């Protein structure tokens, strides 16, 4: 049987943890998306050092378990004199992990813009960066919103792992409440509901954002496909 009293008694405590989860995730995304953009551009830089470092960063953070990254950040950084609170470590770890994935999403988005777009921008006299900023990245945006949303949802869920380094976010709070009440079902149902509500909200907002861009540009079908022919012309 459900003990409804638990829902009332412990909701404030769980909401506190939920609030910390939101703050951490928002900070991690606010850092992670610019980091991802930087890494994506860095990866295609003509300076070998920059592209090597960017690629290495992406590969390391994409190909190791997040929980190990968290442990490394939390237990290893202090050895090098960097003592940060668990919350900050959590934000940094999430931003680094997310940034690596965001970078690959953004890179794929850049690659998906037809080659002729960059060429026409360069041919009119734009620098590489001006072409990126004015022509390529704005077109990348509508392409990358769905995968970026996916990755954001993953990041929100992965933040639960920060409970292992004593961050009092939602999962940690849930564990504590369950320790006091010995009612795992009630507690974790609430925890799950809160994660679900957050993700559903994010997904809905992003979908609205995507639709508003599409509506503005009225995209039909052909403008992108037409440039694939031009590509073969350019490489011969």
């Amino acid at each position: 049987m459900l003990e409804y009293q638990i829902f009332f008694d412990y909701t404030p405590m769980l909401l506190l943890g939920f609030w910390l989860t939101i703050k951490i995730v928002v900070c991690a995304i606010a850092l992670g998306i610019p980091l991802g953009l930087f890494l994506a551009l860095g990866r295609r830089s003509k300076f070998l050092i920059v592209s090597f470092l960017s690629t290495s960063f992406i590969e390391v953070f994409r190909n190791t378990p997040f929980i190990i990254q968290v442990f490394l950040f939390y237990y290893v950084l202090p050895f090098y004199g960097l003592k940060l609170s668990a919350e900050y470590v959590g934000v940094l770890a999430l931003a680094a992990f997310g940034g690596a994935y965001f970078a690959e999403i953004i890179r794929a988005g850049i690659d998906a813009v037809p080659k002729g777009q960059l060429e026409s921008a360069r041919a009119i006299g734009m620098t590489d960066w001006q072409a990126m900023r004015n022509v390529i990245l704005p077109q990348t945006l509508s392409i990358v919103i769905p995968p970026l949303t996916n990755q954001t949802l993953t990041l929100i869920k992965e933040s639960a792992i920060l409970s292992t380094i004593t961050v009092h976010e939602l999962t940690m709070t849930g564990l504590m409440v369950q320790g006091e009440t010995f009612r795992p079902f009630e507690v974790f149902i609430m925890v799950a509901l809160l994660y679900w509500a957050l993700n559903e909200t994010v997904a809905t907002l992003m979908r609205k954002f995507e639709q508003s861009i599409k509506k503005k540009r009225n995209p039909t079908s052909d403008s992108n496909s037409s440039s694939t022919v031009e590509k073969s012309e350019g490489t011969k």
Partner: protein
Amino acid sequence: MTSNFLEIKGLHKRFGNIAALNNVSLNVSKGEVIFVIGPSGCGKSTLLRAVNWLTPPDKGEVWLEGELVGSSSSKLTIKQSQLLNGFRARMGMVFQQFNVWPHLNVLENVVRAQLVVAKRKRADAESTALKILDQVGLQNKIDEWPDHLSGGQKQRLAIARALAMDPTLMLLDEPTSALDPELIGEVLTVLKRLVNNGMTMLIVTHELGFASEFGDRLLFMDGGEVIEEGPPKKILTMPKTKRLKMFLEKLDVTSFKKEEKL
């Protein structure tokens, strides 16, 4: 020959085993309209793209109005690449596939590079854009999005975008090849007006009628080399080389076949 408006000296470009440009040199006077024809893969597009260094040649130099645009012998420094961007703005390029910017409306397509590259004020850029859009017949479409334009309208927009930079030279890479036959005329009309205004142009095309009527000179390229060169009417009616004869025959045959199908 230093008084030349555009000087192309000994361009070489290889893609793997294929020589796209094999020692191509060309001098262009101001106001001259030069058409380049040749079979697919002959290097005609590469020639155009080498002039504004979009495809840097392996060997050779390009000079515009006495200034060095690019040279294969010197590495591209930061200063030189800045200069190159300036040269590119002066050499308007039009692509076969239009490459208009779908995230910007018609007006903004013509305005953006004026702001970013030429550093003009928005008000000035917009009035220039409106004037030029009027010239290419898109004055009623300024708020439209490129995805809603026809191919001919897109290409006229691309021409307007290039013209807004006040180019001294236009490079047109098969400007009508991607268009439905009934849309070619509207683009040719705009190009004819450019010819009449004395614009210097290098045009890669398959429109032989257009070339013979409006060209000052015609180049026939094959295998990365200029095979024949001279006044269009003379070259098209009295080809000297076998290769050009064959090329023209093939074009005739295909156009004949098309008519037959209709």
